């Protein structure tokens, strides 16, 4: 291999070469004798600037730089699922087998296993006309997911050769497509795609289906739609990662892409261990079969952290194109923004707010805009939903990353430290969180849950809101002075907070709750409120009503009624009636 240039200067992950020509912007390059992976991020009349994705310790001036002539790309093909990659899609399991406990450097590992044989079924025959995006073959990638091989987007023509159905590795030529100029394109199971470029779609669809998560506070109060984007901001210890893990485990997407971006190594280990033990409730297959992990932990090179988010979203889009619903968890986007800041600082760019580069908002928007519910080019339907964690400095939501993220997502689940201190989990603060998807999803709720559902939700929200205002008074003078109808609001709000909003991720029944149970629980709370109000008007005291213990019984429904015996909830109406009838 011939070198195209040599190193002129080194400053951390930023390497410059002098008076080199022919480098393209965002081209992937190999730096030094070890061939460390890098990307061209700046070109001026003298210097070409390269960010290196690996540790530059030991690199010398004058070492060669090699061109690759293509932008930094993701390798797309069967074998992605169940795998764990670093930020630039190197397989960490295989790396561990070759180089032991530490992350190794340099070129040499392919993203996907090239020797494994896949059981391939062809979907086209000789003479068929194919367009970019068309599915030409399939293989069962895992027990849950069928991998669909698609014609790369720029190719169209007539199939002039196909292989027999059978077991092949990913590099085997499966079909040959001859285009209108007579050029033959040989297609195997893999294709490359530049990670910073969104994969094209046929048509964006209107958002209309929720991503069902089984988490009551999200499903009922602040839903996210398939194809939507949500942000989870919170200080340390507020439960961002827990929330992300819960969604990754239980949400009803077909595929989960979990990006650990600049976070703890042990968290990735936990995901690896837990997901292989957990079983998907619908198919009874291990959750790893629908999951791919991108792990670029905080001690791995910072430039690769910046790339990890894009690698993740590219993999997500690829599965969307096959017609799957994909959910991408990015934990945490703040670390990604900090990586941008760090590289920007090394390039001596003019900083904007808090040292972040001025292009921060545009980068954030580019990322979140890659979410969507679409009709693909091959006329299948798919979606990419993005759930990004944000780690604001000092838990202060006014900092640039949180503020800019807020502009580009439509669901905002603000995690609250004081709720976390009181071990109220998930610590989503119901006063400052919001979801703009509620209106889009209204029709879905009406037809799939119940027409009363949206109204019930509004009723509960207003009770919680009223409680917040009453608490202002209580904080000053105590609750004893409140009139009974206001005390009732506090009691009902307690039932909603403790019995409904709080959800125990470690409890086998409570960790995931189906919509039907959520709806019936809401109905019960509403019924209890209505009946208590009626009773108060007959001169009974709130003290006597709460003494029946019915409020506490309702709080414990979430544990007492199992998910597979939802009809038991109907017996609670009788219990409420009995309890209230006993009030003297």
């Amino acid at each position, binding site marked *: 291999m011939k070198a195209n240039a040599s190193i002129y*200067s080194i400053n951390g992950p930023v390497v410059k070469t002098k008076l080199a020509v022919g480098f393209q912007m965002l081209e992937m390059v190999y730096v030094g004798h070890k061939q460390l992976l890098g990307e061209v991020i700046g070109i001026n009349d003298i210097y070409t600037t390269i960010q290196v994705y690996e540790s*530059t310790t030991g690199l010398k*001036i*004058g070492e060669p730089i090699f061109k690759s002539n293509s932008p930094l790309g993701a390798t797309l093909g069967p074998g992605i699922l169940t795998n764990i990659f670093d930020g630039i899609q190197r397989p960490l399991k295989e790396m561990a087998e070759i180089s032991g406990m530490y992350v190794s450097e340099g070129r040499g590992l392919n993203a996907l296993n090239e020797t494994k044989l896949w059981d391939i079924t062809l979907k086209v025959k000789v003479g068929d006309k194919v367009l970019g995006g068309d599915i030409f073959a399939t293989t069962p990638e895992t027990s849950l997911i069928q991998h669909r091989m698609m014609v790369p987007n720029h190719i169209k023509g007539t199939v002039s050769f196909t292989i027999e159905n059978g077991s092949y590795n990913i590099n085997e030529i499966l079909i040959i497509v001859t285009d209108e100029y007579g050029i033959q394109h040989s297609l195997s199971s893999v294709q490359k795609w530049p990670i910073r470029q969104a994969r094209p779609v046929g048509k964006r669809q209107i958002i209309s289906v929720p991503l069902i998560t089984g988490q009551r506070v999200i499903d009922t109060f602040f839903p996210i739609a398939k194809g939507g984007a949500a942000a989870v901001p919170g200080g340390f210890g507020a439960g961002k990662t827990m929330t992300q893990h819960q969604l990754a485990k239980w949400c009803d997407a077909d595929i989960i892409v979990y990006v650990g971006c600049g976070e703890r190594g*042990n968290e990735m*280990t936990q995901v*690896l261990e837990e997901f292989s033990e957990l079983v998907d409730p619908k198919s009874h297959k291990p959750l790893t079969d629908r999951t791919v992990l991108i792990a670029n932990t905080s001690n791995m090179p910072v430039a690769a952290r910046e790339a990890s988010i894009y690698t993740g979203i590219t993999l997500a889009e690829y599965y969307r194109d096959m017609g799957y619903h994909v959910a991408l968890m990015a934990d945490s986007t703040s670390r990604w923004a900090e990586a941008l800041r760090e590289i920007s600082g090394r390039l001596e760019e003019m900083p904007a707010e808090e040292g972040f580069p001025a292009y921060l908002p545009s980068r954030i928007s580019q990322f979140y805009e890659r979410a969507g519910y679409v009709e693909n080019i091959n006329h299948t339907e798919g979606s990419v939903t993005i759930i990004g964690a944000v780690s604001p400095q*000092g838990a202060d939501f006014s900092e640039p990353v949180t503020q800019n993220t807020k502009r580009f997502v439509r669901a905002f689940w603000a995690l609250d430290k004081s709720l976390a201190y009181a*071990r109220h989990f998930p610590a989503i603060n119901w006063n400052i969180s919001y979801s703009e998807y509620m209106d889009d999803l209204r029709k879905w709720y009406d037809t799939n849950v119940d027409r009363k559902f949206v109204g019930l939700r509004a009723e509960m929200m207003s009770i919680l809101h009223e409680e917040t205002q009453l608490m202002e008074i209580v904080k000053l003078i105590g609750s004893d002075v409140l009139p009974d109808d206001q005390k009732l609001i506090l009691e009902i709000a307690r039932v909603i907070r403790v019995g409904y909003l709080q959800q125990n991720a470690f409890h086998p029944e409570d960790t995931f709750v189906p919509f039907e149970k959520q709806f019936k629980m809401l109905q019960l709370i509403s019924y209890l409120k209505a009946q208590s109000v009626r009773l108060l008007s007959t001169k009974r005291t709130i003290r006597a009503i709460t003494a029946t213990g019915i409020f506490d019984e309702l709080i414990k429904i979430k544990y007492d009624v199992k998910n597979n015996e939802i009809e038991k909830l109907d017996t609670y109406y009788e219990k409420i009636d009995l309890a209230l009838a006993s009030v003297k």
Partner: protein
Amino acid sequence: MSRQYIGLKEIKGPLIILDQVEDVSFEEVVEIELENGSTRFGRVVEIQGQQAVIQVFEGTSGLSKINTKTRLLGHPMEIALSREILGRIFNGGGKPIDGLGEVYAQTKADINGHSLNPVMRKYPRNYINTGISAIDGLNTLIRGQKLPIFSGSGMPHNQLAVQIVKQANIASSENQEFAIVFAAMGVKNDVADFFKRSFEETGVMEKVVMFLNLSNDPIIERILTPRCALTVAEYLAYTCDMHVLVIMTDVTSYCEALREFSSSKEEIPGRKGYPGYLYSDLASLYERAGIVKGKKGSVTQIPILTIPNDDITHPVSDLTGYITEGQIVLDRNLHQTNVYPPIGVLPSLSRLMKDGIGEGYTRADHSSLSTQLFACYAKVQDARALASVIGEEELSLIDRKYMAFGRLFEKYYVGQGFKTNRKIEETLDLGWYLLSLLPIGELDRVSKEFLEEYYNIDLAITHFMALQGGQLDEVLRKR
């Protein structure tokens, strides 16, 4: 034979710039010989064409443009490792200062370490019994965890660290060896002495490796101190199969050294003048804690931070909290009311606790008991806020019960004292005694089965009566 360069081009704070250098590599170590025969060491931090920027570990005082000879050593910063390193004392740059001579190196390792492959990590699950209730019961320390102590000037964080060293069963039961690596970064002489004396009193000195960079030592060495310490810790854990506890104090001084160094390099500052890469830099230290598949040892870290002005949102504590697996926060109010250890229970957290407690580890009720204690103690804070406005007398009965519960909780559960070493069962039982003082209806985080087994108000009253010499707050007896 490597080449020597005579003279310097520029001197700037702790940095020197060398011109016309050939064949220099990034992060390479250099040896600088002065005219008077003394030598200093430095590290290449930036290369531009033929100019190399070098940070001098021992500082640049006495250097001039002409009185030096600089030699490139051809490798990154390394430290000599062998089992005999146990019991030795080094300066921040890894040179022995106990007069016992150089360490005979069995192997050498780059102090920057390498990133651990997440696939090779083993998820930490075994708890370390520290004998301190507020930690064992509520914020359990797990082997392989990184759990910092957030403190402030004037608070007893050093005593707490020593108590943990004294009481903790760092090695697991299977006759395994343990070691303690102590890294002092910019601490006062007295503090270093206190630790040394305490290690000697406890009789663990031959298990300790000390790295001392005192507050008047050069700051560049301070940047190397934790890296040397962690390299030793990794060697002892992964090569010598030991369970290693690393105590690093004070991380705030480390960060300030980093800031000083960054500004002399004329880098663009981030929040409060700290460099933009402070998060990545701290992560490169903290993430070196853990357990690796196929290795018997482990590295557990207890970094200590003194937070300026007790402001937990300060960049140092903020970024630390985002990287570490929880934090033990010391509370100045508790300290002033003579509670030792003054662990502020509510803001403290152990993230790994949930998987290292419960049946098979501690006891089945541990998890729900601790959640319930947290929830009740949070209500104590609400009651106190209200009492400060309307007075305790005016509170409802239940709020007054919470007030009394809170006092006992702080006095006995948290404030156990420096000498008390509690077994995990004692800690858990004490938790139940406290909860039993509250009406059973208030306990909404524990299951019926546990309540039936452990909730016992009469036993609780007798217990606290005995502790307080027959006295007990009247309000706690009212049903």
